[in-house]
């Protein structure tokens, strides 16, 4: 089972990085989403895998899955939603402002040497 989870994390990471290396905003966002899954699952596995354990406290439970990584990943999921929402809006804004959705700046976008006086 561990191998399956590890390979899933690896596949999500690889696909995420590959898409983030594309030159349009939309694949980059999707890539980031995939990478987010990978990172969240990875963090979750730091509590080690366990099946069939109770999620809640009771006085006669044999054991618990590690709750701390779960709590941290829970907040991470919500935060990554916030982050995704912001970059989606940024991508949309960039597309509407510039008329294209390329991520790499070209020469016209490069700031003038020396900056503003």
């Amino acid at each position: 089972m561990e191998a399956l989870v590890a390979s899933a994390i690896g596949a999500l990471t690889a696909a995420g990085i590959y898409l983030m290396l594309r030159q349009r905003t939309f694949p980059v966002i999707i890539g980031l989403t995939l990478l987010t899954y990978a990172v969240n699952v990875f963090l979750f596995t730091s509590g080690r895998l366990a099946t069939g354990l109770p999620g809640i406290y009771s006085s006669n439970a044999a054991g618990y899955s590690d709750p701390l990584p779960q709590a941290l990943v829970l907040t991470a999921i919500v935060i990554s939603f916030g982050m995704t929402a912001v970059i989606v809006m940024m991508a949309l804004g960039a597309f509407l402002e510039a008329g294209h959705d390329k991520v790499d700046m070209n020469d016209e976008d490069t700031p003038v040497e020396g900056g503003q006086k």
Partner: protein
Amino acid sequence: MSLALIAALPFLGALLPGLMIRAGKNACAIVTGSVTALALLLLGLNAPAVLRGEVVQTRIEWIPSLGLNANFFLDGLGLLFAGLILGIGLLIILYARFYLAKSDPMGQFYTYLMLFQGAMVGIVLSDNILLLLVFWELTSLSSFLLIGYWKHLPEGRQGARMALTVTGGGGLAMIAGMLILGNIVGSYDLSVILENKEAIQASDWYLPALILILLGAFTKSAQFPFHFWLPHAMAAPTPVSAYLHSATMVKAGLFLMARMWPVLAGTPEWFYIVATTGLVTMVMAAKIALFKDDLKGLLAFSTVSHLGLITMLLGFGTVEAATVAVFHIINHATFKAALFMSAGIVDHEAHTRDLKRLGGLRTLMPITFTIVTIASLSMAGIPPLNGFLSKELTLEEAAHTAWMANPWLLGVLATIGALFSVAYSFRFIAHGFLGPVRDDYPSKPHDPGFGLWAAPALLAGLVVVIGLFPMLTAAWLVNAAAGAVTGQEIAVKISHWHGLYAPALWMSLAAIGGGLLLLGMHPRLMAMWLATPRPEAKRIFDGIIEPFAAFASRLSNALHDGALTRYIAIGTLAIAGAAYYAFDTGTHAIGTRELMAIHPVPALGWLSLILATLAIVIYHRQRLLTLVLVGIIGLMVSVGFAYFSAPDLALTQISVEVATIILMLLALNFLPKATPVESTSLRRTWDAAIAVIAGVGVAALAYALMIRDPAFTPISEFHIANSKSGGGGTNIVNVILVDFRGYDTFGEIIVLGIAALVIFALTEALLRAGPANDRLLAWRPDQRRAGDRHPMMLVVATRLMLPIALLVGVFIFLRGHNEPGGGFIAGLIVAIALVMQYMASGFAWTAARQKVDYHALVASGVLIAAATGIGAWFNGMPFLTSAFGYVTIWPLEEFELATALLFDIGVFLTVVGAVMLALASLSRIGLRAGETVNVQPFDIDPSEGRTLNSEEAR
């Protein structure tokens, strides 16, 4: 506590003007002024003790391991400076209210001003040199903002940069010097350092420390050769010049020299460096001031000159000279701030500050003329005004001090400085106000309203009163402050007449006579001055800075070329390389954990996840399909969480998934639907190689982690053991979120709220006139539209589901503390329930029926969470400590009430507000792009048996 509060008040007050400006300029000024007045009042409450000779202290441990403590102390010197800063600050707030133009953002100005005020008060009250350094740098930063306040003026921006470079650079040197000092003594507390004179002066490191600290002080107080930034800082609005560049910031350097006087002064090194620098600055700047036509330029150089004078006095290293220095600090602050404000009034009314274009204002502006005359005469040192008193004492000190065994050099040069001072002071009056009335002023000048002249008039009044009754009005303060500087009992005797045999009398007379003579010869001297070439400080400064700036921008342009893909590639490879190196060189035990068996159903889930991932890579150019595939992955991840005993995560993931996909679909509506092929196959191979390296690395890491037991016992044991007994809940994950790690969650909902506001702000920016707005207005849908935008079946179904979904939300919320659920998940579920209505009947239709302001929702969520946390204080507990109890209300069973539930309500509201605000923002973009607003819930109304025409649909 009260001292820390005095320093903190202006910082807290800095938050108010931005809000209060919405209630009008008067309200804004009054609120800002009240904060300063309150700080002044608190200071005043401490004054009696200080004047009795006590030292008031406040000690707060901050980072004791670094020796950094928030220790404050108030002695006579601190009292004098804090009084000047807050008192003149109050006057400046009044003056600025009437000085700033309608178009100037006043709230911003007051915010910067209060930041600066707090930093200054912090400097003079700090009892810890590290703390002092923090405040010191804060003054540099806030003065940068103030000098550059008129952002549209290039001079303002350049002046601000120059001031920041010079004073910030000096500040860096001072940090080094202070650290050396702290090392010599073994403590960073000023009160300890001040008692170790012998150890410091005997140390080999004395001279380096002295030079470094003086660099900080000289740059701040504009001493030669660092004086050049001050005249350029005059591009700031006049209230700033009056506050920073006459009364407070430039005196910070003097304050520091006075503060360090007991341990640094009294050596030949101190005398020759400080006294000489002060002397040169005083004479040189006074000479330049005479040839400045700009009123503020004249005052700027005059300020440099007077700062030089005070520096020189401190440099003498004698108790008497230090006492005179303190007295002159008071006097200079009064007359110079009054003069700056008057120059501002002239500028405000006549629309010019150029002496060549002024003259004859005496009859046009009688009130301003009176103020200027009093202050200028004081600056010139004419009896009986206060400037005269301290100048006489200064000349007396100079006459009695030998420089390199030369008994008369200092006296002569000081007299020459005073002579120029007389000349430019009289020139201010003569060329500005006397002479015939002209008819070519840029604007017809007249006296301003009371609000503008009240502050300088008050200061001019002080000039007269201190001048007439120095022993009554100023001596006690001088005694207290000078006593703190020198560490000795001081009983100063200030008088107007020192007798015929006092050298100061004759030096004064020479200065006044010579000054008047110079003024008479001014036109001829001016021609000579203009004909002589002289170094242009700004050109030299730019010449030095330019190559560095060019190098920096070349470097950053080369490294940061705007290609995101390049950064990601380099970053990924660097991380992979570093990780491999760490793995290769580190030691690690072999994995001994027993592996779990693979069951067929989870294996199927894995397979679909892997296939979906592969499919995304292959078909990523078809964007809509990609979103569907992402949905599959999200679903599998959620199911995985459920399978691995994490029900809370599963619930969260699935609901976030829905919200994310809806959001992306809405955005995709306006984005291109396909990604074109742009990269070469070589590039794609290369990218794939990077991706595979990263993927294999992460997979290996995850596997290695999972087959090993934790190296340390996880702290989860504590959470499990205390969840029920301490947190009052059986859902350990939820208790961790709202209790054990409530601070994290609190921070997180703030981040979420900020994200929502950023989205809102971005939308606002897009909808403003500009290319984005034009594109939206001209937007044509690139997909075929469904004939029925709001299908009846969907509308009816979502209507029916709404109460059920809301009920589920409430249920999930309420049980969250004990069963899987909680504020996050409930918030997402409720948000989705509402979004369904939007999808079914359109944004405008729904929004009209649901009058909730999402901003308010986000804000109230954060505030409720904060209030819950603060509530613990009243229980005598730290922030966010939860309390719970069990109650029975008939006919219900016994149930639990926990403050954590309140906190979770905050979380819930923030999540709902943030999700809805994000989606509503996208809807606004849709409306701008021509989406119609429908008044009916659906387009085809079966009861009427026809399709609503577009007129009605609108």
